[in-house]
Structure formats: structure tokens, C-alpha cells
């Protein structure tokens, strides 16, 4: 059998098609990934001409309680951790409930699906400035509506309740749509077979729905953990890190250190430590899902 003539012609054809993307990929993904490591090994002040090599000093400083960055960095890591622990469970569980409701047949189903998804198409800046005003402790509509006097944006634990609540409100529909697609992928016959075997609604949920959704649930959990670790806009616009620096997340601090104070070596080192922490969390997450099978 002879191959079609085109396949033999032009070894450069793949290069022709690939080169525009590969150029961008190299410049803005591959080079920065290596460059970042290089920077993190230097005292890299953007404004100074000399950028001396310091080995692992930037990393060591993060683990040295006497260094000026130690407390700030770990406070910000703790903030990101608290936010992740607080927001991932509701964002994994609640959207499943919404998806189960949307998976039933009723009039206006498409409309409701769109409504729940709606906040997600708005940017974090819109969401942030809107909730900042809604949750204002003195003038805010939320306190007025419920007759409360809660310092939503200025005190703990309320600042966390606000940031997590806002994020759930904002991204719930995104996760629900992913779950919904997963639910629709479970073969109808499995439910019928379970019913024939005498399984009730709850048993069908536990023995058919949940196992069928496992791959989708792993995806939702992973994406939500990644998004939580990236949290920035909500805290910047709603709490501004208050009270003190309690809600200043790791990304906020890294951006401050590297792009405002221009200590880029130190900031790059922090990025890699945060990335490493995220890898550890993801591995644990995968393990948990696997052990449940």
C-alpha cells in the first residue's frame, strides 16, 4: 500500500502549521518557566543594574523566621489555605445538587441553567466592586435587608465568610454545568437496571450516580483547587486584605513583592513554593479519589 503523495511531500509542512503557536509557546510559557527559576536564584531587583547570584537564599529566607519576608509570606499562604479549605467543599458539593435539579425534565430548564451560569461570565472586577458595596458594614444593602450589623469586609471570621460566599455565588454555575454534562453521560440503562433490582432514589444516587460522576468530580475538584490557589481579585477589591493582612492571599503578596516592590527574585521563589504546595495538594486529592474506588 502506498501512502498518499501529500504525506511524503514537504517535511516542512508540520513546521509551517506549528510555528506560529510554537513561537508564542516558547516566548510566553517555556522560556518564562525556566527564566523564573533562574531569577529565583538571584537577588533580582528590577530597578538595580546588578542582579547578583545568591543561590538558594531566596528560598531559605522563606523558611527563616528571622527574615523580613517570612511572616508576611506564611500569613499569605495561610490566607490562601483558609480560602481553599473553605471554598472547595461547597464548590464541589452544592453544584452537584444544582446539577441534579437541572437534570430533571421541567419547563424552563435551559433558562435556569443559563441563569445559574450567568455570574461566571462576569469578571472578578465586576463581582468584586459590586459585592464590596453590597456588603458595606454601614451602608450595605445586605445588612439592611436582613436587619444585621455584621462587619462583612473588615473583621474575621466575616471577611472569610464574604470572600467564600462571593466566590461560591460567582462560580457555582460553572461547576454545575460540568456536573450536568457528566450526569447526562451516565447511561439511562444503569438506572433502569438498578430500579429493577429494587433500588430506591437514594440507593440509585449512591450506586449509580456517584460512581458514574467520579471522573467529572476529580476534574471539578482539581479545577476548583487551582482556581482557589489563584485567588486575587475578590480579596483585593472586597476586603483589601483586611483586617490587617489576614485576607491578603499568596498571589496578592507575590504580586506586591515582585511587581510593586520589584524584589523579583524573592517573588519568583515564592511562586515556586506555592506551586509546589499546590502539587502536593493535587496529589493528595487524586489519592483520596482513587482510594474511594
Amino acid at each position, binding site marked *: 500500500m502506498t501512502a*498518499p503523495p*501529500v504525506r511524503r511531500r514537504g*517535511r516542512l*509542512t*508540520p513546521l*509551517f*502549521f506549528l510555528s*506560529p*503557536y510554537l513561537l508564542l*509557546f516558547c516566548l*510566553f*510559557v517555556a*522560556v*518564562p*518557566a525556566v*527564566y*523564573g527559576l533562574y*531569577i529565583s536564584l538571584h537577588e533580582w531587583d528590577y530597578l538595580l543594574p546588578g542582579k547578583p547570584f545568591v543561590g538558594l537564599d531566596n528560598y531559605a529566607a522563606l523558611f527563616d523566621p528571622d527574615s523580613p519576608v517570612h511572616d508576611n509570606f506564611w500569613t499569605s499562604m495561610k490566607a490562601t489555605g483558609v480560602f481553599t479549605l473553605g471554598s472547595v467543599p461547597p464548590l464541589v458539593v452544592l453544584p452537584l445538587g444544582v446539577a441534579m*435539579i437541572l437534570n430533571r425534565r*421541567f419547563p424552563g430548564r435551559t433558562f435556569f*441553567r*443559563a*441563569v*445559574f*451560569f*450567568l455570574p461566571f*461570565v*462576569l*469578571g*472578578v*472586577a*465586576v463581582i*468584586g*466592586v*459590586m*459585592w*464590596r*458595596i453590597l456588603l458595606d458594614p*454601614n*451602608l*450595605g*444593602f445586605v445588612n439592611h435587608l436582613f436587619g444585621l450589623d455584621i462587619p462583612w469586609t473588615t473583621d474575621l471570621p466575616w471577611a472569610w465568610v464574604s470572600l467564600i460566599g462571593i466566590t461560591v455565588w460567582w462560580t457555582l454555575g*460553572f461547576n454545575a*454545568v*460540568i456536573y450536568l*454534562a*457528566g450526569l447526562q453521560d451516565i447511561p439511562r440503562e444503569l438506572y433502569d437496571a438498578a430500579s429493577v433490582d429494587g433500588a430506591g432514589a437514594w440507593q440509585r444516587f449512591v450506586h449509580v450516580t456517584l460512581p458514574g460522576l467520579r471522573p*467529572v468530580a476529580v*476534574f471539578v475538584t482539581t479545577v476548583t483547587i487551582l482556581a482557589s490557589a*489563584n485567588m486575587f*481579585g475578590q480579596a483585593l477589591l472586597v476586603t483589601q486584605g483586611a483586617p490587617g493582612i489576614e485576607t491578603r492571599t499568596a498571589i496578592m503578596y*507575590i*504580586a506586591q513583592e*515582585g*511587581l510593586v516592590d520589584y524584589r*523579583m527574585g524573592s517573588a519568583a521563589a515564592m511562586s*515556586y513554593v*506555592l*506551586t509546589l504546595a*499546590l502539587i502536593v495538594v493535587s496529589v493528595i486529592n487524586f489519592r483520596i479519589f482513587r482510594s474511594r474506588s
Partner: protein
Amino acid sequence: MKTLKASAWYVMLVGFAAIVIVPLLWMLLTSLKTNVEATRIPPTFVPEEWSTGAYRTLAEGTSETPVLRWFLNSMVAATGQTVLVLVVASTAAYALARLEFRGRGLLFGIIVGTLLVPSFTLLIPNFLVVDQLGWLDSPWALIVPGAASAFGVFFLRQFFLSLPPELEEAATLEGANHLQIFLRIVLPLARPALATLAVLTFLSNWNEFIWPIYVLFSPDQFTLPPGLSILQGAYTIDYPVIMAGAVLASVPVLVLFVIAQRYVIEGVSRSGLKG
């Protein structure tokens, strides 16, 4: 009993929907209040006195808050990146789906692997790369680096693989080369996937917040999301002006969502099924 249960579901559903809609409605209504009314205690929901003053303030703008300019900048950046992504992602995806060359699997693996690299990891070095290119404080910083995302390549490759190869084989036998096949057969067939990718790219670029804050410096270059943060600082308790800015930043993406809802939701759904 059955109808009672069904109506309980419905009430819950409507309740949830209200939680989503009411804050957004409040945002719109507040943008149409006078400043005095917006900061009054107790607050109102529906304006007692309707006012377009906030929008007029935005339209006039100041040298620190040229809001219409931000709107234009946002449009240019989001449109520019969408076009760029469509070109580079579709060509690369075609090569990875249909051309045979050594190291194809490895290359695809590396590209897709970067989907798991959190964006903040590259924030600092990317800032320096953009600086080296002389793109700081310019639209290029908003358009080009983000187009290196692996999502579009991954998404389109999967779609191209799902296309039946017969049409392409027939064209090959008639002597068409790969560029002709790509342009005349594959791209027209991939129109729904291209539309989905275009909408998702536009949305995410339009909403981009952290990157423009740090790569843009002059008020004239800002886009709407960092602009909102400036408005929040400049108009502290002039709530109608801040909310009018938020409405302005929402309208284009809401319109796009309403028109292209099917593409957005299907695009998101499909990304999950592959995970």
C-alpha cells in the same frame, strides 16, 4: 403528593435563581440612582428618583478615569486576542491532529501538560519577557502572551480528530495540499468549535484582571477591569458611578452570553468530560 414534591423543587429553583439575579439587578438599579439616594439609610432597592447622572459622569471621564477609552481598549484587546488565538490554535491543532511527524505525541503532551501550570507561576518572568519586548504599557501585552494558552490547541485538536477523515482523503487524491485541505475542508467543518473557542477567549480576555493591573501604567492604556479598581478608589462612596462602570463592563459579555449561550455552555461542558 407527586405534584407537591414537584412544586417544592420548583420553589427551591426559583429561590436559587433569585439569589443569583437580585444582586445583579441591584447593581443595575443603583447605577440609575442619585448619589444621595444610593448612600441613604435605609437604602432603597428601586430608585425613587431615576437618574442617568452616573453614566454622564463616566462618559465625560477625567484624565485619571477615561472610562470610554478603557472600553475601547478592552474591545481592542479582547478582539485582537480572539483573532490571534483562532489563527495559531487552529493551525497547530491541525498539525497535531492530522500531520505525521516525529515527536508529535511528546509535543502534544508537553503542550497539554502546561494546562496544569497555575498562571501565577509565570507572572513574574512573563512580566520581564514582555518588558524585554518593549510591550509594557501597550495593548500588545494584553493581546499576545495570553494567546500562548494551551486550551485552544487542545480543544480544537480534539474536535479535528472527531471529524470523518474521508473528505480530506478524497481531496488528497485530487491533489490538494494540506493548506488547501485545512482552509477549504477542515475549517468550514469546524465552525461550531471555532465559534466556541472565540467566545470563550473573548470572555476570558475581557475579564482579565491581575495581568493588566501590573503590565499597564498609564490611565489611557487601562482596560475596564483594572479601571473598575481605579473607579472604586477615585469615587469611594459615589456608588452610582462605580456601579455604572460595572454595568458598562458587564453589558458586552452579557450580550455575548445571551447570543452565544449554547457555545459557551457546551464548550464548558465538553472541557469537563475530557478531564
